[in-house]
């Protein structure tokens, strides 16, 4: 049964209208934000005047990507429990940010992650390293989102092989989708800076959470709000044993192959660890803590974020199992083998059950818009993080040795956002038919291996020095990259980036975290101990500033 094709006429039109409406509203917000973006603090940190709930919504918006909405719902719909495992790692990770990083980072830094890493080190080498790592993480993540976005737009518009819509076939629609997403995100950032983009993200979080909430209530309503019954139906409809237990997707047990089983299970551990330690090292997440007036508001904003993200993942659990029970695995995989359309398909069927085909089309349009909002808000956050790092770390601190004016720095940041937008569009078009889903895992692995250890050692270890920071960042980065290049996600398997034909995979796990995170930490420690540099005075300044907030950056008034 081809569900999306059934409601082609009204469904597509409604989806397009709602999508264009949200884009129009967000561009309106961006233009408004443009009027308030003058100084570097405005561009990088939105003036530091956001309240706890505002930043909390923006945090949630930054974090909840299409991968964590459509991806997790789809994984649950096809593989059951294991999709839930992913969302648990994503959520628990926020405790690392809350307890160990956010407040001290807010008090110590100004605009970027590198501000904290270089605080008591030699500026130029450490800032360069931090910028390299920031750009790597952000570009990997961005690329994964953009390629996904192209495919998603073709899918959500219901364009299949051999069909056309507005004169586009599926391949053209993918490219148009990538270019469109790339242009919009660049516009948000280049024009609105952090201020405009934060309000856009707040708006997008409302669409995403609101849309998911309406659908969740409708699904639960069909089961008289009896979750157990929903789970039973999902398990029965899936036709798979152990659908409600871990093991169908991650840590798969291969009968008769004890070695492969062992690696699969270690791979699951590796994934779990990278998820929980990666979040607090993602540059686009870290720079959000600079947008609030002080450390206390940063703390409260994370609590808002945890509440929203947690509630959202609980809803995706219902949506995933709901799709398995109500839409069925066959209908889902017929649309998209990875299950990415499970949630929109569910919206159409459940809406149709409740209020006929019109409501079905409306629900489909709402969930599709929510998915677009999830993509746009995440990619724009990534563009801000990378352009801030290019302008503030590389241009001003490294090239100009801190002597650039604010105007110059903001100008470079805007140009950088346009440059990154163009690079992301071109790379995404080249990669559009490759399996780049692993790039999200790679971004988390680099964040957990290169960024988090050096960040924590900077804040807490007195002896830590320039050499240690450089070894830690480059060590963690190179370890993650190397292991992924020689892993099965890159070559040697049917689902690899390079396909089955090329086989250079000697590292047996898809997620490098289990090896690269300890390696990054060891590099940082060994690098520190092999250098005599030790600046106790700077450490004392850093800790007093980080813990009391004295001397920290203030909010600006307009």
């Amino acid at each position, binding site marked *: 049964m081809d569900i999306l094709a059934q409601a082609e006429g009204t469904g597509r039109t409604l989806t397009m209208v709602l999508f264009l409406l949200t884009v129009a509203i967000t561009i309106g917000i961006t233009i408004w934000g443009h009027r308030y973006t003058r100084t570097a603090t405005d561009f990088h940190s939105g003036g530091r005047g956001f309240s706890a709930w505002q930043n909390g919504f923006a945090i949630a918006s930054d974090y909840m990507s299409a991968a964590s909405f459509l991806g997790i719902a789809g994984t649950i719909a096809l593989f059951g429990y294991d999709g*839930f495992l992913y969302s648990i790692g994503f959520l*628990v990770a*926020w405790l690392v940010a809350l*307890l160990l990083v956010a407040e001290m980072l807010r008090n110590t830094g100004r605009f970027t992650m590198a501000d904290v890493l270089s605080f008591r080190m030699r500026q130029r080498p450490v800032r360069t390293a931090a910028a390299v790592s920031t750009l790597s993480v952000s570009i990997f993540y961005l690329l994964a989102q953009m390629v996904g976005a192209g495919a998603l737009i073709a899918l959500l518009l219901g364009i299949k092989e051999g069909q056309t819509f507005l004169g586009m076939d599926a391949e053209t629609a993918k490219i148009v989708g990538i270019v469109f997403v790339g242009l919009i995100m660049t516009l948000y950032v280049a024009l609105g800076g952090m201020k405009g983009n934060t309000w856009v993200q707040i708006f997008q979080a409302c669409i995403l959470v609101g849309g998911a909430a309406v659908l969740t209530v409708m699904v639960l309503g069909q089961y008289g709000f009896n979750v157990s019954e929903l789970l039973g139906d999902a398990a029965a409809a899936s036709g798979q044993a152990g659908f409600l237990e871990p093991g169908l997707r991650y840590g798969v047990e291969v009968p008769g192959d004890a070695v492969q089983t062992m690696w699969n299970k270690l791979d*699951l551990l590796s994934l779990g*660890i990278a998820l929980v330690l990666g979040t607090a090292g993602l540059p686009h997440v870290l720079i959000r803590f600079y947008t609030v007036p002080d450390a206390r508001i940063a703390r409260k904003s994370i609590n808002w974020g945890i509440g929203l993200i947690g509630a959202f993942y609980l809803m995706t659990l219902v949506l995933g199992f709901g799709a398995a029970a109500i839409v069925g695995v066959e209908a889902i995989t017929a649309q998209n083998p990875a299950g990415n359309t499970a949630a929109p398909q569910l919206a159409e069927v459940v809406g149709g059950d409740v209020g006929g085909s019109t409501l079905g089309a409306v629900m489909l349009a709402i969930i599709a818009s929510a998915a677009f909002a999830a993509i746009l808000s995440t990619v724009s956050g990534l563009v801000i993080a990378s352009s801030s790092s290019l302008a503030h770390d590389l241009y001003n601190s490294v090239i100009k040795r801190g002597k650039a004016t604010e105007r110059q720095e903001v100008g470079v940041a805007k140009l950088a956002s346009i440059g990154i937008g163009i690079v992301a569009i071109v790379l995404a078009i080249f990669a559009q038919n490759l399996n780049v889903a692993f790039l999200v895992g790679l971004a988390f692995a680099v964040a957990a291996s290169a960024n988090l250890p050096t960040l924590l050692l900077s804040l807490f270890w007195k002896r830590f020095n320039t050499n240690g920071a450089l070894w830690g960042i480059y060590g963690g980065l190179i370890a993650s990259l190397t292991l992924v290049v020689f892993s099965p996600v890159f070559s040697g398997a049917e689902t690899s980036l390079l396909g089955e034909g090329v086989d250079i995979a000697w590292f047996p796990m898809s997620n490098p975290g289990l090896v690269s995170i300890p390696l990054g930490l060891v590099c940082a420690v060994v690098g520190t101990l092999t250098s005599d540099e030790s600046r106790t005075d700077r450490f004392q300044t850093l800790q007093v500033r980080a813990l009391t907030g004295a001397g920290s950056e203030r909010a600006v008034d307009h």
Partner: protein
Amino acid sequence: MATPTRDGPPPEVTDEQLAAKYDDPRFTELKRSLFRFIVPATFGFLAWYLLYVLLSAYARDFMGTVLFGHINVALVLGLGQFLSTFAIAWGYSRYAARHYDPKATELHDAIHYGEDN
């Protein structure tokens, strides 16, 4: 004590003024009251999360044990991770507001406005 941002930005401080407070007993106490919460909380939630991941990988029969209806141990432990995350976040905010923030504000003002303020 007045919130320093209320009447315009507080006076600037130098890095030396900040570093000078490092050996102040009040700063040692401030650090201790922060670490008293975040160290056990961090080890606690990481251990509990790791246990959950290990059970998911190596104790699948246990995870599949049905408790009632279609609700099994895996689902309850997973929801438990959500609950513990909410609880730790809430508990930390409560603890910090009571035992940390007042001390931090006191030191912040002492640094910016001088000891007699």
